[in-house]
């Protein structure tokens, strides 16, 4: 087994194809581990990991914490809402204070794009980006591709459409990079106002008609409309958005093939996807969550193996 080419996981754009392959192969082993009666291995018992969440999260935070505990690492948690950040402490000061407590690895979610890259230039610990603003969310993209590989056999050559709020989505950008690295064809679909200008320069197709996008794809990754990041109205009403870009079973049944439906969560049921579709056999939303733990274990394990004693 080779090593990762990077010392931090700041974004998919810093990885190469072999890295993704290595992460997936390692995740296969961890997926077997987390399905054992006793789901824990002692590999990281001398590693301490700090989870720094400067922005709210349920799934990602729990998933990281579980992955760390399954690897026997010591874990400390930090949420900005309950901390001295409110008192005016800078990011570097906060992190350096935490590192003086001898922490080996930092998992960070931050509202500012590039926060992880900035931090990696100033501190020694390994950094995993758990989402930085609307920039990247690499572990989500890895688990999405891993789930596609699990369902369809491989990612290469598959047509994947990302539907919804592309503009405010870090999941979309990381997914585009990850899917393209593995040889998939990527399309984005959503209201024109929620598709970034010049996104076609990344080599993705752009489509504003949902039916045509679904006819083209093997997999649809449906994103949430991120109302909390919108300062102006990007579409007239939620009802209109649902009519044009909501996925429902009538629409899926009218296609001449069965496509796989993914969603990174949290789901706004009845807005971007109806409940019956989200709970159907076509949807692999809960598989994504299970795979999330295995992928995060793999990433943490591989990065930890590069920390020298």
């Amino acid at each position, binding site marked *: 087994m080779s090593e990762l080419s990077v010392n931090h996981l700041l974004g998919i754009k810093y990885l190469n194809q072999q890295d993704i392959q290595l992460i997936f192969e390692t995740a296969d*082993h961890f997926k077997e581990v987390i399905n054992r009666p006793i789901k824990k291995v002692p590999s990281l018992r001398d590693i301490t990991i700090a989870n720094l969440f400067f922005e709210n999260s349920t799934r990602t935070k729990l998933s990281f914490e579980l992955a760390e505990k399954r690897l026997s690492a010591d874990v400390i948690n930090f949420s900005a809402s309950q901390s001295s950040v409110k008192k005016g402490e800078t990011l570097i000061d906060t992190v350096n204070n935490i590192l003086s407590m001898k922490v080996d690895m930092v998992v960070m979610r931050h509202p500012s794009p590039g926060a992880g890259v900035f931090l990696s230039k100033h501190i020694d610990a390994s950094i995993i980006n758990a989402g930085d603003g609307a920039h990247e969310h690499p572990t989500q993209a890895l688990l999405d591709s891993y789930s596609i590989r699990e369902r369809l056999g491989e990612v290469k050559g598959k047509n994947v459409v990302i539907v919804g709020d592309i503009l405010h989505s870090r999941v979309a950008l990381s997914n585009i990079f990850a899917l393209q690295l593995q040889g998939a064809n990527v399309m984005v679909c959503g209201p024109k106002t929620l598709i970034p200008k010049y996104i076609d320069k990344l080599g993705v197709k752009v489509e504003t008609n949902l039916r045509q996008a679904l006819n083209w794809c093997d997999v649809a990754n449906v994103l949430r409309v991120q109302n909390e990041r919108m300062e102006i109205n990007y579409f007239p009403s939620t009802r209109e958005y649902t009519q044009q870009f909501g996925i429902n079973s009538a629409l899926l049944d009218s296609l001449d093939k069965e496509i796989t439906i993914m969603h990174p969560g949290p789901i706004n049921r009845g807005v971007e996807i109806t409940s019956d579709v989200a709970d159907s056999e076509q949807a692999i939303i809960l598989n994504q969550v299970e795979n999330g733990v295995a992928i995060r274990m793999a990433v943490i394990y591989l990065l930890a193996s590069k920390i020298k004693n």
Partner: protein
Amino acid sequence: MSQKVLLNAKEVNIILHRLTCQLIENHNDFTNTVLIGIQPRGKYLANRIAQMLKTEYKIKNIQLGHLDITFFRDDFRRGEKPLEASTTDINFIIEHKKVVFIDDVLYTGRSIRAALTAIQSFGRPNEIELLTLIDRRFSRHLPIQPDYRGRQVDAINNEKVKVNWKENEGEDSVYLINN
């Protein structure tokens, strides 16, 4: 680099028969026994012994699994090379069973120490035994000894014992390699 043949195909075959018979002596019809090959190299020996029990000694219901110990090793982050994981394939519970660990070479005993921890994830066995084809004497770091041994070998530290299998390397043989 020089190498010396320790065992040829015929000798390996005789030893495998002896080890298999010794197992039968202690485990009768194997109803309460499971064989566990330690990945990566113990797998071949375990498959061979299970095959021999089935075809030559007509024992049915052999339960065979493969255990990967990578994530349980004590040298994570200490070696030069990254550790490479293999597949664990145990689709039964070992609670109250007699477990036989099977590995090709017993050297420092650290792999077996890791295997003793790893197997706990699959339940609490009644007892665990160890079968190795080659036992490198006087090189143990831990108080671990085999219950069934094929051949004892005195090898000094810079020597390596290499076990070859027909299904993998094209011949059954054991070499002592001096670097």
